């Protein structure tokens, strides 16, 4: 999957550990968004026609089109359901997350 990954982060302990000025690295993710989800989108590959509509409309960009099949990055999917709603062949199911 070609999506930015979570980076290891250690809390600054002393003032020296903090960056100079109010800056930080870009593309720096230290926490995931999976906990936001109540429903998880699951692609049914038998029905998927690879139209890439879900890839285009995802507000979080979690659908990766680089592989043979579409892949969802569940670390950052918030379960908003836009992909399921927009999918014309109805190839995405929203499945309740089990705790």
């Amino acid at each position, binding site marked *: 999957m*070609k*999506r*930015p990954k979570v980076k290891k*982060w250690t809390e600054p302990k002393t003032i020296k550990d903090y960056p100079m000025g109010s800056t*930080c*690295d*870009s*593309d*720096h*993710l*230290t*926490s*995931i*968004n999976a906990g*936001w989800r109540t429903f998880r989108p699951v692609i049914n590959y038998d029905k998927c026609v690879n*139209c*890439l*509509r879900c*890839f*285009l*409309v*995802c*507000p*979080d*960009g979690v659908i*990766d*089109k*680089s592989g043979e099949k579409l892949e969802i990055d569940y670390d*950052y999917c*918030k*379960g*908003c*359901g*836009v992909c*399921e*709603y*927009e999918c014309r062949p109805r190839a995405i199911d929203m499945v309740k997350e089990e705790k």
Partner: protein
Amino acid sequence: MNQKLNARTITNKELFYGHKACGGCGEALAVRLAMKVLGERTFASLPAGCMSAVSFIYPNMAFTSNAIITPFASTGAVAAGVAAGLKALGIEDTHSVGFAGDGGTADIGLQALSGAIDRNDDIIYFCNDNEAYMNTGIQKSGLTPYGTRTTTSPAGENLPGSITMKKNMFEIVAAHGIAYAATASIGYLEDFMKKVQKAKDIKGTSYIHVFAPCPTGWGHESNIAVSLAKQAVDCGLWYLAEYENGEFTLNKNPKEFSSVEDYLKVQGRFKHLEDRDIEIIKNHRDTKWKKMRRDWVR
């Protein structure tokens, strides 16, 4: 690059990722796709607003390129400064872009934007229009339409929510004689990406006003965000147009409008509207479209 932009041709690389926007955020989708079209060598300036609040949560940083939070009123000025700095340093093949909300554009940042357009600085300015100050808890902005319930324009016995119409931001910008201005909607993403590409290729100031639903502030299900944005265009409450070489062009001119009621009634912010309020909204729409069809269709 003259390639047609769509889901197949656009890059798979995410340049705005892992942000903490609400599920189904229309603005986040607009920024994500705009960044994809503009590419990695883009310097983004964002004022206070949802998009800066959700992407710059230290130590998290959702942009993969350079981005800066500007004072609220100065998106246009900071983006212009970045463009001037890049020019002075001789750094070529870059874009300076501003992503502001509707309040940050039509109310608070209007002066800085106006100045940037006047100087014709080489920037691309995005107004992500979700029709209220959402980040601070849904207050009415200059782009909040008539009849909207917000925390500063509550609906009750005497008032139907907001009593003013949407500010004509697109035409205000165009009146400067800007190099390129366009309106877009996240319901028509190919059209939006085409306009971003156009803005990218144009030297001078470009302005893109993108209509982006906000599930939290509008009170609708998160999964209908994209289709709601499309519905807004189809029912005539938003329009797709361009301003180039001193001329307006209407990109989409529907023969018949879809139902305004269907668009309004799925949103919590319009639930209270009565027939007479909807009549006012429709009359305003018809006046606007009459003018646009007369002057903008060639």
